[in-house]
Structure formats: C-alpha cells, structure tokens
C-alpha cells in the first residue's frame, strides 16, 4: 500500500511541475497583453504597426508621436536573415562533417571547441563584431568602393550567425547521429556514394530535427540583443541595405525601459507593445514550422 501512495504523490508532484510551465506561459502572455493594451490605448495600433518612423517622444501638447515600428521589424528581419544565411548552411555542413565524415579523433577535437563557442557570452561576440569583423568588412568594402558604416546589419548578422552555429551544428549532428546505421548501410549497399546517401536519405530522414534546430536558432537570433547594440547600432533606419546601421525590436525594448521604472508613459509602455508583437510573431513562426514537420511526416512517415 505504501508504494501506491508514494506513486500517487510522485505523480501529482510531476503534474504540478508540468502545470507550472503552462501557468507561467499564460501569466507572461496576460501581463504582456495587459500592458500592450494600455499602450495601444494611447497610440493607435495602425500607426504602430504601419508607421515608418521610429522616434518616440511626447509633444508638449501631450500627443505621443513617432511610434512607427516598421523600421524595427525590418531591422530585426534583416539581421535575422543574415544570421540564418550564415548559421543554417554552416551549422548543417559542420553537422554533416562531424556525423558522417570525421574520424573519431577529429570529432574529439571539434566537438568541444564548438561547445565552447556556445558558452561564450554574447557580449564577447559583440566585441568581436566591432573590433575585428566590422573593420575587416569596411576594408573589404573599400576595395569594391562601398562605404560601410562602423555599425552595420551585415557585421551584426554575420556574428549572430556564428553565435547560433554551435546550436545548429550540435542539434543537427545529434539528429544525424541518431539515425539507424542500417539506413546508411542500405543506401551504400545499393551503390550510393556517401554524399548521395546524405542528400537523399539522411537529410530527409533527419528533417524534423533539423527544422527544430533551425527554429531554436532562429528564435535565439530574433531575441539576441547585445550583439545588435554593439554591432548594428540604435539608429532606426528603414532600409534593407545590409551595409547600413539598423536596430532591432529587442534593442529598442531595452533602450525604452532603461532607467525608467514607471510604466505610465507611452515610451515605456511601447516596450510592451513591441514585446507583444514579437511574441505573436515567434508564436506563428513556431506553428508554421510545426506544420512543416507534420507535412513531412505525412509524406515520409
């Protein structure tokens, strides 16, 4: 009888743990929504979502202006795109090399180094971007008669790509490594080369996990703040030119909230507005990716 009682208590305890995750998620959503609604009571949601200038201030008349968030979202998208353009292919190729080609000795050298890369604070990546990458990009730019500002979406994006690389490669490597060896043998046994086996059999089979790795990296990139502050700047330029300085949603949230502790003016409340939209965006991104994985399952079983 004692063990049954214990069993029930343990089960209840685990249920509570699981429940807390749900409750906290809902709590965060509600807080965010509440503050965001207060913000949208002051600034029209249309102006916010479609306004092209971001220069938030309050006129002497008491009117809040300059809350057009489009430049922030384009900045976020631009930097994230660059980051994923670097992180996805590099991460995947590193994963393929480590899982399929590397000798055990090479693996033992490369894996710990990659994992160290994952442990570096993003601040340090920021330093790397301004002191090393940005000057280098400027010099390269000069060769082609392009003028790069010290702060640019390009350098921030590339460094961010390097930042997500260890996540991407480590998760994808795990996914490839987990595939049964029989799949490889069978493909090789049919006369396929190693690369044909990877492209036609292993990558499709590991697709759901690769998608998950991509998503995790993507949300890391979208949420990343420090690198952007240091490498891409605070200027809310509406541009898709990667050579110019841009800013992102998260950076602006930080700068809006820094120093101010009273959540009663439009500027601080705007942070919640931004946060809320970001939340919705990543939420739908996740759903989209899940759909992709489901579709894949339907086709590949």
């Amino acid at each position, binding site marked *: 009888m004692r063990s049954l009682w214990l069993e029930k208590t343990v089960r209840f305890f685990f249920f509570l743990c699981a429940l807390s995750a749900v409750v906290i998620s809902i709590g965060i959503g509600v807080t965010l929504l509440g503050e965001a609604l207060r913000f949208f009571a002051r600034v029209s949601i249309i102006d916010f979502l479609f306004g092209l200038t971001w220069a938030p201030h309050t006129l002497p008349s008491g009117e809040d202006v300059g809350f057009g968030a489009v430049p922030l979202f384009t900045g976020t998208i631009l930097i994230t795109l660059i980051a994923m353009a670097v992180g996805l292919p590099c991460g995947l190729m590193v994963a393929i090399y480590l899982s399929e080609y590397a*000798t055990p000795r090479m693996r033992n050298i490369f894996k710990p180094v990659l994992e160290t890369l994952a442990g570096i604070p993003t601040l340090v990546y920021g330093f790397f971007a301004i002191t090393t990458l940005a000057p280098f990009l400027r010099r390269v730019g000069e060769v082609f008669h392009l003028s790069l500002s010290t702060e640019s979406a390009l350098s921030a994006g590339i460094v961010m790509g390097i930042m997500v690389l260890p996540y991407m490669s480590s998760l994808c490597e795990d996914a490839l490594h987990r595939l*049964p060896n*029989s*799949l490889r*043998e*069978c*493909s*090789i*046994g*049919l*006369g*396929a*080369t190693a690369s*044909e086996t990877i492209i*036609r*059999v292993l990558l*499709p*089979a590991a697709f759901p996990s690769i998608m998950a790795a991509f998503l995790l990296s993507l949300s890391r990139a979208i949420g990343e703040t420090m690198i952007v502050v240091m490498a891409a700047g605070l200027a809310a330029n509406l541009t898709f030119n990667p050579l110019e300085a841009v800013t992102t949603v998260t950076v602006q949230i930080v700068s809006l909230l820094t120093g101010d502790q009273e959540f009663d003016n439009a500027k601080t409340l705007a942070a919640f507005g931004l946060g809320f939209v970001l939340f919705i965006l990543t939420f739908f991104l996740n759903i989209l990716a899940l759909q992709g994985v489901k579709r894949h399952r*339907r*086709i*590949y*079983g």
Partner: protein
Amino acid sequence: MSFKIDVKNLSLFYGDKQALFKVSLGLPKLQTTALIGPSGCGKSSFLRCLNRMNDSVPNIHIDGKVLLDGKDIYAPSVDVVELRSHVGMVFQKPNPFPRSIYENVAYGPRIHKLFKNKSALDDIVETSLTRAGLWEEIKDRLQQPATRLSGGQQQRLCIARAIAVSPEVILMDEPCSALDPIATAKIEELIDELREKFTIVIVTHNLQQAARVSQKTAFFHSGHIVEAGETGELFTMPKDERTQGYITGRYG
C-alpha cells in the same frame, strides 16, 4: 560447374583480430548458397566481403581474392559503386528509407540513372515490386510512406529495392530473423523464385530455412569453412563431426 563468385584464400582482420582464415568457396551461378554456423563464426563478415561493405570499417585488412565472373573485386581499378550495382544486399532488419514506397524502389535506379523517362522508371518499380511479390498488395498506395508497411512487407520492399538495380547477385544477411513465420514463409518462397534470375547468398541461423531454400551450404566455424557442399548431402551426410554436431543441435 560455373561459379558466379569464386572466393580464394580470403582472410579478414579487424585490427589484430583475425575473423576469416584463408577461406575459399565457390558460389554457383543462379543457385542459392546458404552460409550457416554459430554466432561470431565469420559468416556475416564473409558475406559483407562479397560486395565490399566492409570497406568503411576502420582498421580492417583483407587478403585473398574474390572473383566476380573471373574478375577480382578487390583489384584497385574496381569501381565500388558499380560493383554494388551488380551485387545487391538485403539486411537483417527491414530498413526502408523514410520515404514513399515508390521512392524506395526508385532509389537505386535513380542513383545509377538506369532509366530514360518517368514511365520507364514506373516500369522498373512495378517489375521489381511484382518480382518481390508485393505489387498486388500495395499497387494502390505507392505514394504512402514505406514505414507504414508491416515488417514482412517492408522486407519484401527491401528485396524489391535491391532487385530494382538489376543486380546479378543478391546477398541476404539473415533476412527473416526479424519476421514472423508467415512472413518468413513468403520470403522463402520468394527466394526460390528469384533464383531464376539471380545468384543468391543467404546467411541464416535457421537450419531448416537453409535446407529449404538453398542448393549449396557452407558451414562456418571460428573463421574457417569446415564443410561446404550440396545442401541435401551436407544435411543428411555431413563429413565433419563438427558439422554433424551443429546440424543436429548439439552445439551452436
């Protein structure tokens, strides 16, 4: 008798450990040869030498000759990819690729570019599935994931996939050990039919199976072939007492 594959003095080392000791065996054309013997006797290692599946194993060393139609497959000029299109393989566990039934069978023809157009590929897929005795069961759901088939169907799909590249030899490594008796019976029946077109080598732990499907049997023990000969003879009048002991179930 003409041998499709003639193995001469084959020795195999995994690092310092020797797994095969100067093994010689002829595999008769368009017949089924069964390789039997206790676990770890080297029969699977031997089988995998026949289409060089062991190549990628680290620290492996192989001596001797494996002649396919008189040509040594370990000669430096041999293209391994092409070799494997002549010598196909079916594994112990049914392992379809996580793709559709159609794509599984089309995989080999695609990588070896064996067809001119889509309808030619359709033909290859249909012929292979028919030959594997699977066509009637699945012809209406070729686009479904292969992983949804039953174990026995999956194994027949793997056979279809192997014969889709029109090999001359099919190597089978305990193809029925993961299947139930009914599925096993179907595969055995299939092996008998496939003998018309293919030379088959099968590794099996099931002695009745060896007796049922093969014309020639080789008994392996600790890396040596103790005895090889006509299946009927080997099972009824074994010359070596170790063979006698194994087939009567005294050890193994």
